């Protein structure tokens, strides 16, 4: 009998197992030796070959691995139909192919296998894995293979649309197996129950759990919890509550269980419908009770009794749940009762009496301030009261420094939160008064905090945003890097810096960020087949499902898609002075079509937002929103209250943004092509022009117009009339960039197609070129006119100018380069004579004119940058630092003063060596100096880009 079972890829499993064990324990040499001897016995077994390939790949011998894999694939695909193609072989091959970045080959193996078994189509092609597993199950009769099959079905249903019917199939398979063999693994039971739950068959699931199979659950409380949950799902609340009660008797500190217990007593359905969020009812949703008042009282009092009992029998002094349970019960009783302000007043009164400096008093004060922040709505307080709060918080922080004297540098200090809160308040003051001093103070206190302890990540995150807003991106990036963000945090945390970097001239750093992130994600996807297999082999079927869903979650990440699109756009920007380079970059992404495909793909699957937005500061709750760029609209307006809508809005915006960015490379390519085709036509050169490309560019222009929420012709109308109207320039900055792109690509398309008469209404002799030139020039002039000194004008003017120069203007430059190249082919001498020459010189004139206009435009920016950079550092320093050093009573400076005075009082206090040393190294003047030098770094980098651009344009014009 034994010979019938346990075949792996047609080889007895006992022969294969030691090899897998060796692989698992990373003894690759040993594994290789054994695999070689296995191959001598089964020289043509695809499975044995696949195993060897797997080992070689692990040893880093990729080429050998690939060639063996190909060999295995060959045998697999050509052998006669009597050869069994099994899942083990296929999945082993898949792992190796995938790790070698040849997923296509793995897929072709699967495809072949599918075509080989057309009679089993009732299970569908997509279920091939499952089919194979079922086949193996039939051959071997092992529970494991059955679970593989069931898991495959669950994955099929969970990760693609519809197919719920397939659950019946899985359930049927399991039932049949149970009837003949029963179940023997705890995980198998868990899969079975999940399967029933997925079909809402909670009653059946209960039966299974209460039946003999229930004994497979090894941990008693786990079983009780599950029973309770299932009972609650069928609204059998009484017995459910009993189950949870039993759990609490065994684990009195299980808070979640207590909430479920209470939920059952009060027959609160919401407790169980949303399984991912088993958290107690909030103030907002508590208005309706689920049971009658009398019943409520009775049930609550039974809960009180039970909790008392728990406290009585609890001999463990670290027990917290029962005590907090009393509070929760009280909370439920008064849920809709008391006024929050009354509570606050009471708390504040308490605070007044606790004047002493102790950790407990400090903790109390912090909690009161937090509650005030939470329910007191600081945005409605008058400016001077808000300022007093900031002063108090800063003072309290300084005064509590002695409490932390014994602490290690790694430990959190007491009162760390005070400075974060004070920063929040100061930024609010900056928003309301537009007084730069408050912004400086907010940075100053955080830098002070980091001087004392350099590990406080909350301060660092706040600084990342404050520096970004003040156009001091190099400092923001430095602070971000010190957070040591890696692994999955790249997915959840990098939104703090990435969007700002995308609009910056810090290309090398941006490139690092993007490539590190994409590499991490790709590595994970490559390894995930391997990891799925690991879970299968450990028979952790429920984890297989979780893991695959997690992988899906990452694969549909909006940031991942964005990074994949932005990385090549960055390359295009970096090389935009050299059309040949740009063309080879475009070639490597299938001339931009690759991204079109990507963006089409996302339409079929919803994008996932894995970013952890909770850690963002209040003024920029999402990465496309910054309240500081807008005017403060008075006391009725509180950003925090709008958070949910803001997140929804961002998710919509991101979809649009991704679409916009994904068509960009293709539009650049088509525009270059169109420009050169138009010149070639004109000079009578015989270049083959593909009319399809022109049509495609038009389709994309229409799509672009649609993203801007305009019909195509209206959009054309708008850009043609723009010099005579102002509205266009009042758009938000990001929209202007989009319009600029539209205009530039429109001109390129029309050069070749001549479909439109592009004329500026206020300039009758003009054409597409002139419109583009005047638009670019105008928007830059407008911006620079309204831009203040960089040092004292935080905001988005600088990023806007950077984007304008490095994107639309650069794309336009490429179109000009393309024309010039077609007009003056390298190595050829200019032809002389006749109509061609005349036409040539006309084009040449237009191009000269455009080049000159572009240079003039860039020169404006260049002059402005030089002006900023030439300002003496001391003057800049004074401009900033004086904002907090003035002696009058109004405006910022109070927090700074209190910081200084508290520190001078600290001179005689014992703070411990470490803190004392840090205090001695603190010099507030360093902060503005660093800001200035950070800004200079950014400006210089931008200056360099502008200079290179002018230089390359001037060189171009020499050719004409």
């Amino acid at each position, binding site marked *: 009998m034994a010979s019938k079972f346990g075949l792996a890829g047609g080889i007895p499993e006992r022969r294969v197992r030691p090899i897998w064990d060796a692989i698992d324990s990373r003894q690759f040499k040993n594994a290789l030796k054994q695999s070689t001897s296995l191959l001598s016995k089964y020289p043509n077994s695809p499975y044995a070959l696949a195993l060897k390939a797997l080992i070689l790949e692990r040893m880093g011998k990729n080429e050998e691995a690939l060639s063996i894999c190909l060999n295995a694939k060959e045998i697999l695909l050509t052998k006669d139909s009597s050869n069994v193609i099994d899942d083990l072989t296929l999945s082993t091959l898949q792992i190796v192919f995938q790790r070698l970045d040849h997923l296509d080959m793995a897929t072709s193996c699967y495809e072949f296998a599918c075509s080989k078994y057309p009679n089993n189509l009732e299970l569908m092609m997509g279920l091939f894995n499952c089919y194979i597993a079922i086949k193996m199950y039939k051959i071997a*009769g092992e529970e494991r293979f059955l679970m593989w099959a069931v898991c495959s079905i669950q994955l099929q249903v969970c990760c693609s649309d519809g197919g719920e019917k397939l659950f019946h199939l899985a359930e049927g398979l399991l039932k049949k197996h149970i009837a003949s063999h029963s179940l023997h693994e705890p995980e198998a039971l868990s899969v079975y129950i999940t399967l029933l739950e997925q079909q809402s068959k909670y009653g059946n699931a209960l039966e299974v759990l209460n039946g003999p199979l229930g004994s497979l659950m090894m941990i008693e409380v786990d079983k009780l919890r599950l029973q309770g949950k299932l009972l609650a799902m069928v609204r059998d609340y009484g017995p459910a509550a009993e189950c949870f009660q039993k759990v609490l008797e065994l684990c009195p500190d299980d*808070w979640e269980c207590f909430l479920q217990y209470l939920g059952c007593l009060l027959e609160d359905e919401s407790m169980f419908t949303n399984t991912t969020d088993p958290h107690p009812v909030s103030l907002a949703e508590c208005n309706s009770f689920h049971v009658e008042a009398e019943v409520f009282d009775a049930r609550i009092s039974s809960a009180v009794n039970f909790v008392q009992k728990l406290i009585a029998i609890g001999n463990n002094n670290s027990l917290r749940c029962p005590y907090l349970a009393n509070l929760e019960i009280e909370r439920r009783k008064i849920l809709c009762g008391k006024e929050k302000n009354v509570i606050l007043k009471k708390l504040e009164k308490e605070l007044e009496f606790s004047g002493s400096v102790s950790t407990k008093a400090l903790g109390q004060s912090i909690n009161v301030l937090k509650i005030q922040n939470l329910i007191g709505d600081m945005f409605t307080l008058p400016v001077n009261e808000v300022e007093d709060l900031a002063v108090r918080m800063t003072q309290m922080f300084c005064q509590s420094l002695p409490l932390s004297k014994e602490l290690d540098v790694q430990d959190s200090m007491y009162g760390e939160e005070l400075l974060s809160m004070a920063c929040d308040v100061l930024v609010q003051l900056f928003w309301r008064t537009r007084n730069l001093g408050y912004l400086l103070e907010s940075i100053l206190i955080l830098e002070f905090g980091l001087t004392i302890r350099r590990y406080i990540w909350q301060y660092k995150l706040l600084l990342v945003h404050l520096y970004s807003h003040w156009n001091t991106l190099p400092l923001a990036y430095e602070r971000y890097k010190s957070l040591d963000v890696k692994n999955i945090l790249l997915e959840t945390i990098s939104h703090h810096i990435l969007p700002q970097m995308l609009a910056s001239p810090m290309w090398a750093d941006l490139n690092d960020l993007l490539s590190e992130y994409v590499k991490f994600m790709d590595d994970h996807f490559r390894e995930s087949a391997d990891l799925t297999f690991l879970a299968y082999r450990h028979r952790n079927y429920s984890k297989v499902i979780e893991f695959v869903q997690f992988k899906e979650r990452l694969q549909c990440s909006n940031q991942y898609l964005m990074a994949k699109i932005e990385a090549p756009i960055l390359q295009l920007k970096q090389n935009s002075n050299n059309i040949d380079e740009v063309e080879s970059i475009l070639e490597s992404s299938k001339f931009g079509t690759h991204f079109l495909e990507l963006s089409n793909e996302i339409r079929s699957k919803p994008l996932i937002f*894995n970013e952890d937005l909770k850690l963002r500061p209040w003024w920029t709750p999402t990465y496309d929103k910054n309240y500081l760029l807008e005017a403060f609209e008075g006391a009725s307006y509180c950003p925090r209250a709008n958070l949910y809508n803001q997140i929804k809005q961002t998710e919509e915006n991101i979809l649009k943004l991704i679409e916009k960015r994904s068509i960009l490379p293709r539009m650049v390519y088509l525009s270059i092509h169109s420009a050169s085709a138009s010149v070639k036509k004109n000079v009578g050169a015989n270049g083959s022009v593909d009319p399809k490309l022109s049509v495609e560019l038009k389709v994309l222009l229409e799509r672009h117009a649609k993203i801007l929420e305009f019909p195509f012709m209206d959009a054309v109308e708008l850009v043609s009339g723009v010099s005579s109207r102002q509205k266009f320039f009042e758009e938000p900055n990001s929209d202007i960039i989009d319009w600029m792109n539209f205009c530039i690509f429109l001109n390129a398309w029309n050069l070749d197609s001549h479909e439109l008469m592009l004329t500026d209404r206020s300039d009758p002799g003009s054409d597409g070129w002139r419109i583009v030139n005047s638009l670019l020039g105008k928007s830059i002039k407008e911006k620079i006119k309204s831009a203040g000194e960089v040092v004292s004008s935080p905001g988005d003017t600088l990023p806007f100018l950077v984007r304008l120069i490095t994107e639309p203007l650069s794309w336009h430059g490429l179109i000009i380069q393309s024309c010039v190249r077609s007009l003056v082919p390298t190595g050829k001498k200019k032809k002389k004579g006749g109509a061609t020459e005349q036409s040539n010189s006309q084009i040449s004139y237009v191009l000269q004119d455009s080049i000159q206009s572009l240079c003039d435009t860039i020169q404006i920016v260049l002059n402005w940058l030089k002006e900023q950079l030439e300002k003496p550092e001391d003057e800049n320093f004074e401009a900033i630092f004086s904002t907090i050093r003035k002696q009058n009573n109004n405006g910022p400076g109070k927090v700074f003063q209190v910081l200084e005075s508290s520190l001078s009082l600290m001179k005689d206090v014992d703070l411990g060596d470490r803190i004392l040393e840090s205090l001695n190294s603190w010099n507030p003047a360093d902060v503005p100096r660093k800001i200035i030098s950070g800004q200079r770094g950014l400006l210089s980098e931008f200056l360099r880009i502008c200079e290179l651009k002018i230089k390359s344009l001037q060189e171009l014009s020499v050719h004409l």
Partner: protein
Amino acid sequence: MVCIRKATVDDLLAMQACNLFCLPENYQMKYYFYHILSWPQLLYVAEDYNGKIVGYVLAKMEEESSECHGHITSLAVLRTHRKLGLATKLMTAAQNAMEQVYGAEYVSLHVRKSNRAAFNLYTETLEYKIHDVEAKYYADGEDAYDMRKQLKGKKQQPHHHHHHHHHHHGGGCCSAEMKAEEKPETAATKTN
């Protein structure tokens, strides 16, 4: 109130964020996956009132000689949530599962010699004993205590026994693991 529950794969996002707030650990992400996909019963998280993960324990099963035993790979509790007994609860949950699910006879762990707080937790509260000292165990050259705690050694429930067609193909109680990655560059276990 914080509750202790079994980890899910999705918790990984928050577990790694936990590392941002504690000391940075240099475990690769796949190492977490390796644990949760191999011994999902041994990973527990501490979740606070708002659903935030504030601590976790990462553990695995090992087989040296014939004694099946568990090993605590990593224990972390956010500094904001120390002194609440969370580390003890996380450890107890993992130890119980080792014993009940896998029939582990003892559980081992490594701790930095200098980490007094963690050492006290292990010796006093959790009753671990020093088994050995591993010289220069950590990348920075610090020694580690190899500590052990005897479990009741309850034999594994015979859910595999009466079953003729089963193969313990890497999946049963124990399986060897990625030794090379066991040591992160910083502390292997940390807690106060």
